[in-house]
Every structure is written in C-alpha cells, then in structure tokens.
C-alpha cells in the first residue's frame, strides 16, 4: 500500500510540474488577449478571455493535485514525462482560441496547427489566413517562439532553485547543453539570448518591411511575427503566400540571416556572445552544416538547372537556394508555391531538399531534424572506422570533435547518435507510408513526411484540411515525437502502458 501511495505521489508530482508549465502558457496567452484589446477585435477579446481562463483552470487543478508532492525529486523518466505531458496537454488547451475562432474546420485541425507551431514545424490547417485576426496571428507566432526555445525551458525560468528535478525536465525537452551551472540558470540564459535577438531582429525585420513597401504599423507587426517565426525556425507567415507575399529580395535576405542564426546551438550563441568568435568556424555543427548545405545546394542547383526551372542566377538563388537553406535549417519559409515543388523542381532537386530537411539544424537550438552534431559524429565515426583498417594495427589514433571544447569521440556518443538518427528514419518511413495510404505519390509523401519529421514546414501541397483524420493524427504524432527527440514521448507512452497493464 505504501509503495502504491508513493507511486501515486510521484504521478501527482509530475502533474504538478505540468500544471506549472500550463500556468506559464496561460500567462503568455495574455499577450494575444492584449493585442486583440488594442486592435479592437471584440470577438477575439472574448475568445482569449475564455481560453486563458480555461488554461489557468486546468493549470490550477493540476497544481492543486500535486502541490503536496512537489518536493519529491523527479527521476529522469518522470522529468521526460513532465516534458512530453506538458506538450500534449499544452497542445489540447492552446488550441482553444483556434477552435473558437471559426478559422478551423475541426478541433483536430486546431490541435494540428498548435502542434505545428509549438514544434516550430509550420505546416498548417488554417482557413482564410489573409483575413486572420491580429490577436490570433499573435498567438500563432507566440506559440512558435515559445516552442522554439522550449515551453518547459520557459517555465524553468520562473523556478527559483536549480534542483535536480529542474534539470531532468530540461533534458526531457531534448536540450542537454549546460550553458551555466544549473538548469534554471541555463534556461534563463537561453531566454536572454532569444530576447536579445528578438530586440535586434524585430527592428531589422520592421525596417526590411518598410523597405518592401509595407505601411509602418504593418511592417512593425509583420516584423515581430516573421522574426519570431524565423528565429524559431518555424515557418508560419501572416499571409497565405508566405514570404512570396513581400516580393522583396531584401526581406528574404533578412529572414535568411535570422533563421540561419536561429538554427545554431544555444551553446554556440553563448560562446560567441562571450567573445569566442572562433567557435563559429571550429564547431562541429557549423562545419557539418556548411558541408551538407553546400553539397545539397549544389545538387539541387544541378537539378534545377538541368530542368531549366529558373531563368537566371538571381532567380536560382532566391528560389532554389532560399528553399534549400529554409529546409536545411528546418524553418519552412517559402518563396515559391507548394505545388511548384511537385510540378517544376524535378526528382534531383526534390531529393536534395528532402535530405536537407531530414538533416536539420543544430542540437539544443530551435531547429529540428537529425541535427548537425549527430551528422558530424556519425561521419567522424565512419572516418575513424576506415582509418582503423588503413593504418598499421600498432597505431592508436583517438578521434576528437570540437563542440565548444575539444572532446574525445566516445562509443556512447556514436551509439546515441545512431539510435536517434535511426528513430528519425523509422518515423520518416511511417510518415511516408501514411501519405501513400492517403493516396499521394511517393515523392509527395516522402517530401511531406520529411518536413513533418524534421519539424520543417515546407509543403509540397499534401497537408490540407481535406486530409483524412488518420494522416493529420500521424503528422501530429510525428511532429511531437521528433521535436522531443522520441525518448520523452516513448517514456510517457511506456509509463502509460505499464499502468494499464498493471490494472
């Protein structure tokens, strides 16, 4: 009985922390509420009042239920359960404004868009985007920004102590860099970096908007939204034509700079901001990203030129390279229409961009995909393996990688990289099979699955409100699993199954 009570208390402690995360989300939802008040959007003032209240109510109930057990030290599994549970419940409750708005055909579509935003994917189900309310748009981009840095990371900012439990939750959200001693200090450092870039990026994007011809007020609003989306490698835009709407090379270039920087590891940002600029050249992730981006861009350019898709080099850069880097950084901003990929790009370019989407950005960043760190580790391991058989047996060579500091390449690193990449590939295969099951071609299914698996947001035109429910649910699960890098969600599922089996 005592054991059962102890286990019960531990579940309640997990619920307590999920409640804290939801409370922070409710506080964040006050920003779109304030936006709707300022914009005079009566309907959305009521929508956000109701949604904030319901989110707070759920948070209060969870906190109440677990307050007594909050001092318990969470295990690694419980920390992961907090992270994955918060993302799941967060999705269900953050979808309320969407569901009440009338801009979504179903609650499932609303949940899809929230998960797409939180995971910084950027494929969507919204209806009539060109007439969307300012408040609802603010919520879409805020969710992307919070999801990019991590909603658990945001909640940790408000904790007062660097507990062991805090670190377990931090790791549960697929972030394992310690920028500073303690998870709470690290979370605060991550948010400080993001807010610093927000101030700079907002100003730059607003100026680029004015240059592109937007009225000042609109340029300021679009500036903060596009920055939040770009920095978080999200891919949402306030207009249905995405980045093509602006018809401006300068605007595209500004987004390109911010989403590329956003896809870098927070540890790299921290090192560079502290004055170590050499880290930019030496870090295994920037080296890996530069090599894979160059190779895949050349391959895509070859495919596009072979098919004569674009009339000149400027067009090749603005359409070919922009989409490629947008895919590789897992951003998903588009300056072409979705169906142009399918009808015009050809197999070679489509193959290159699909691979780029799977490779993704850096670990402990806002980006998704395999991550540059793992790709670097895998290639280093392959190189070490080849060297082992080509050098004299008596010679022992230790392989090292540089990630903030020089590290020996260990078996544990290689094993972990291979496990996660394998899980990504299985997920990609499942997503592709689901697309095929829904009647799409292999190229379409693989492209869209890579986009969901890599949390990218580029679309070939598969994702739509007309999709069957099973495909939408599959993509939601894929985005959730991939964003948390599988282990957290699988731990939550295992705990749930174990409870059911015990009964």
């Amino acid at each position, binding site marked *: 009985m005592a054991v059962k009570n102890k286990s019960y208390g531990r579940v309640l402690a997990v619920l307590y922390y999920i*409640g804290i995360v939801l409370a922070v989300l409710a506080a964040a939802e006050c920003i779109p509420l304030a936006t709707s008040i300022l914009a005079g*959007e009566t*309907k959305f003032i*009521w*929508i956000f009042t*109701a949604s904030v*209240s*319901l989110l*707070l*109510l759920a*948070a*209060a*109930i969870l*906190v*109440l239920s677990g*307050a*007594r057990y*909050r*001092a318990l030290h969470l295990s690694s599994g419980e920390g992961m359960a907090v992270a994955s549970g918060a993302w799941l419940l967060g999705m269900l409750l953050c979808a309320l404004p969407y569901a*009440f708005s*009338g801009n979504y055909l179903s609650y499932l579509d609303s949940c899809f868009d929230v998960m797409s935003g939180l995971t910084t994917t950027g494929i969507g189900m919204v*209806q*009539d985007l*060109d*007439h*969307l*309310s*300012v408040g609802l748009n603010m919520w879409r981009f805020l969710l992307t920004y919070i999801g990019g840095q991590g909603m658990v990371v945001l909640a940790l900012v408000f904790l007062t*102590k660097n*507990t062991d439990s805090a670190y377990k939750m931090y790791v549960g959200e697929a972030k394992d860099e310690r920028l500073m001693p303690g998870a709470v200090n690290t979370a605060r450092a991550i948010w400080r970096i993001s807010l610093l870039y927000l101030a700079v990026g907002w100003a730059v994007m607003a100026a680029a908007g004015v240059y*592109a*011809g*937007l009225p000042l007020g*609109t340029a300021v609003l679009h500036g903060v939204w596009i920055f939040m989306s770009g920095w978080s490698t999200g891919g949402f835009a306030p*207009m*249905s*034509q995405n980045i*093509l*709407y*602006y*018809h*401006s*090379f300068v605007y595209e270039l500004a987004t390109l700079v911010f989403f590329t920087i956003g896809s870098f590891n927070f540890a790299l940002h921290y090192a560079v901001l502290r004055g170590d600029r050499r880290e930019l050249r030496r870090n295994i992730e920037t080296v890996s990203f530069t090599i894979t981006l160059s190779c895949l861009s050349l391959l895509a350019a070859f495919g596009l030129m072979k098919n004569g*898709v*674009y*009339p*000149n080099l*400027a*067009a*090749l*850069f*603005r*359409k070919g390279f922009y989409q490629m880097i947008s895919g590789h950084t897992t951003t998903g901003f588009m*300056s*072409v*229409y979705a*169906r*142009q990929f399918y*009808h*015009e790009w050809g197999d070679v370019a489509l193959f290159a961009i699909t691979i780029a989407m799977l490779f993704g950005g850096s670990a402990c960043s806002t980006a998704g995909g395999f991550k540059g760190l793992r790709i670097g580790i895998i290639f280093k391991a392959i190189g070490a393996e080849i060297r082992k058989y080509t050098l004299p047996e008596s010679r022992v060579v230790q392989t090292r990688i540089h990630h903030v500091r020089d590290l020996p390449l260990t078996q544990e690193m290689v094993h972990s990289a291979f496990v996660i990449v394998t899980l990504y590939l299985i997920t990609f295969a499942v997503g592709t099979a689901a697309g095929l099951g829904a009647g799409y071609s292999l190229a379409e299914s693989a492209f869209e699955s890579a986009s969901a698996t890599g949390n990218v947001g580029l679309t070939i035109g598969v994702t739509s409100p007309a999709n069957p429910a099973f495909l939408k649910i599959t993509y939601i699960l894929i985005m959730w699993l991939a964003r948390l890098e599988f282990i957290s969600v699988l731990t939550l599922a295992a705990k749930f199954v174990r409870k059911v089996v015990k009964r």
Partner: protein
Amino acid sequence: MKLRLSFLLVLLLPVLLTVNAQAASAAVTSAELIEKAADYDGRTVTIEGEAVGSILPRGEYAWVNITDQNNSAIGIFMKASDAAQIKMLGCYGLTGDRIRVTGTFYRACAEHGGDLDIHAARVTLVSAGHASIPATPAWLPPLAVVSAVLAAGFCTIAVLRVKRYNTF
C-alpha cells in the same frame, strides 16, 4: 434544305459569338495558374480576386496580391496609377476591393527573381470592398465569464495550497 441550314446558322450566330467572347475573357483562378504554370507561362490571362494585405509600391509600379480562393493568392505587378484605384484591401474585418486583371503570366519571372506573377496590362475595379466584422457567438461571453470566475477561484486555492506545502 440549304436555306434552312443558313437560317439556323444566322439564328445561332449571336449565341456562338457570345460564348466565344466569354471564353476569351474567362477568368482563370490562381490555383489553376499555379497548378498548370508551364502551360500558361508567357500567355495573356485574366484573373479576378480580392486585393489583400497592403499595396507594395515599386516606383512607378506596385505589387498587389489578390486572393480568389481560400488561402490561394497571386502577386500582380501593376502601374501605380492602376493600384491607386484600389481603396480597400482585405484583412481581418474588411473584405477588400475586387479587381479584374488582364496581363501576362510568368511561371518564373526573370525580372522579379523567379516569382510566379502576373504583369498587369489592364486593371478594372469589379466591386468595392466593405466591412465584414465577424459576429461574436452568443455562447462566448457567458463561457468567458464563468471560466474566468472558476479560474480565479481555483488559482487562489492553488496558491494557498502551494504556500502551505512550501518546503522547497
């Protein structure tokens, strides 16, 4: 017999001419242009849609994005003087002016960095825009008030409870 056939043709002529004229000026949709971009590339097309967002000036010219279906829009490059006749642009609470554009369609415009666009030769205003503020559903305010009261109550209890177990 011949006379009968000629008479019939004379009777049908106005009908045939009308159908032909309609076909020549029949508007295509943005979705059709995107889907069959290679077929329409370099051809003169006519499209009708609601001007949305903002007019983006480019010297003597301007970009106007028009939408003709849910989440399907296309950029029109037109003279600034043509753009000036657009008084209302669609956004939340506003339905923009509806315009009809005849111009050259480009799958990947060499002049505009590969944009899929239309260079307008003629722009006409079809209908003026209007306010279209969505109504607030009757159930929404009561839901907001009740949930706000409940949330306030539960949050107060939760804060007191957390303070009671403040051992951490």
